[in-house]
């Protein structure tokens, strides 16, 4: 898969509720082939406090209109700056990066997302749809605004919601949702993305049932292309780069995830914060 550096044109910057927003970006030439779960590295301009690029999953791809969409949660300086980007502005983006989800022909697929971790699951579901598969999607967050774009998910899969405060869907964590608790064994493939605490719980349950489970990590990155070795995660075979050997890993490959230094998305999700 060829990586490109594009100056993408911002067609739309739309709020997705709470701190979340989507950027619709148009490529200057035909899009490269993009696999669900892959990400891009975005240069944040005009901010003296932001030096490195910022990684974001590719939330949606439309080869026809030659656009990609990002779903971003404002977390700090870079994402705050990006949230103010205007229609017509340009965004320098390196993509597509990393190894995405494995796509099989199994029809019974569960996608589990937490907070802004849902981002890559939309494109994943769409690609599954193209293969005739309608996945079950389970998304969770602390409260309604932490579960962005539920309507979009409903279009591409049977979507269930869990919120900790019960303001949307069932009350509780995704792993406490009735679908997860009672029907997990029905699924042949599980894909999850979100706070590491959640992903670990999902992976554990999946492993107990011997269901293949892929998780998508969000380690901090400097290069995004496998050369700085800053983004490593510990696996059964030693350190692996999340940016090139991931971000998607088979859950059984990983060991010693460090929950509290974990993913950026943990904030809205973990209870005691």
């Amino acid at each position, binding site marked *: 898969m060829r990586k490109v550096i594009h100056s993408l044109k911002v067609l739309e910057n739309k709020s997705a509720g709470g701190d979340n927003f989507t950027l619709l970006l148009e490529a200057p030439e035909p899009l490269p082939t993009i696999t669900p779960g892959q990400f891009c590295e975005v240069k944040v301009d005009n901010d003296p*406090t932001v030096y490195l690029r910022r990684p974001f999953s590719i939330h949606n791809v439309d080869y026809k209109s030659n656009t990609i969409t990002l779903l971003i949660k404002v977390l700090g300086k870079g994402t705050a700056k990006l949230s103010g980007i205007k229609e017509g502005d340009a965004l320098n983006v390196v993509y597509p990066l990393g190894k995405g989800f494995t796509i099989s022909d199994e029809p019974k697929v569960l996608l589990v997302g937490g907070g802004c971790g849902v981002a890559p699951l939309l494109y994943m579901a769409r690609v599954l749809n193209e293969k005739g598969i309608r996945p079950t999607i389970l998304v969770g967050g602390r409260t309604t605004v932490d579960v962005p774009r539920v309507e979009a998910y409903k279009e591409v899969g049977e979507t269930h919601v869990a919120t900790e405060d019960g303001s949307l869907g069932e009350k509780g964590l995704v792993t406490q949702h009735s679908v997860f608790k009672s029907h997990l064994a029905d699924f042949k493939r599980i894909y999850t993305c979100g706070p590491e605490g959640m992903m670990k719980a999902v992976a554990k349950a999946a492993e107990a049932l011997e269901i293949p489970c892929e998780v998508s990590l969000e380690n901090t990155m400097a290069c995004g292309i496998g050369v700085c070795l800053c*983004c490593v995660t510990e696996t059964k075979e030693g350190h692996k780069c999340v940016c090139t050997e991931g971000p998607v890993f088979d859950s059984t490959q990983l060991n010693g995830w460090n929950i509290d230094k974990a993913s950026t998305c943990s904030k809205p999700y973990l209870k005691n914060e």
Partner: protein
Amino acid sequence: MTDLSVKINKLKLKNPVMTASGTFGYGYEFEDFLDLSRLGGIVVKATTSKHREGNKYPRMAETALGMLNAVGLQNKGVDYFVKETCPKLTKYDTHFFANVSDSTIEGYVEVAEKINELDYIPGIELNISCPNVKEGGMAFGTSCPSAFAVTEAVRKVYKKTLIVKLSPNVTNIAEIAKAVEDAGADSVSLINTLLGMAIDAEKRRPVLSTVTGGLSGPAVKPVALRMVYQVSKAVKIPIIGMGGISNATDAIEFLLAGATAIQVGTANFIDPQVTIKIIEGIEDYLIRHRIKKVTDLIGALEV
């Protein structure tokens, strides 16, 4: 025609723009972004005698126009490098340099000896300045006797171009440069990263698993430039300058300060094509200033 070529010892580089170890992988990771054969040289990621897992995650912290890293020499060891990695490099028309590191003089010597056998590696960069390992690494680069000792030992077994990479974390870098020149180095490269630290005030914890790490990027440029200038007054061997170089103007400043070639590090992360832009920018500068050969810029600062 503008002549961009420079010489490190007897080795001719097509232009003075190289990539810095640990920031450009083994080169081929950048193949989608640029034509590697346009580069003056590529210094690959550090190689040690044995496979190393490196430090624990997190290994990176962003700082004011810079970053800290604490990778800790993660690599698959010299044997893997010789057998698996090197063969992949032969197809490119540029010079690849191995960055040699270890914890003991014996380790350095072992790696250098093995790499000495490789036809298509015309030189090594002896990394006596890595701040991110508990043993060896930077310790060799912070005193004259130890810098001399490791350089001398490697010089005995290494027959091609020997570049020694210096640490900026010293009181007098010119002294260390002189010591390694005396020990037989063909060139010195500088600077490696400045030892720094980042703290997460909310969590009240260091950001890096190793507490301290190496600072690189634009923030360090003024220090790097000063050190290149100081070293250029102290040694006769060619200097390879680096530290925060992000554009052609930066590169030219290092040449003026006395560097024969330059390396681009962290800037590759921000713009994977930056090296090509720097090469083109240097050429533009030479044309605009009606300078025929880039070597006329070396040390040409009017003080």
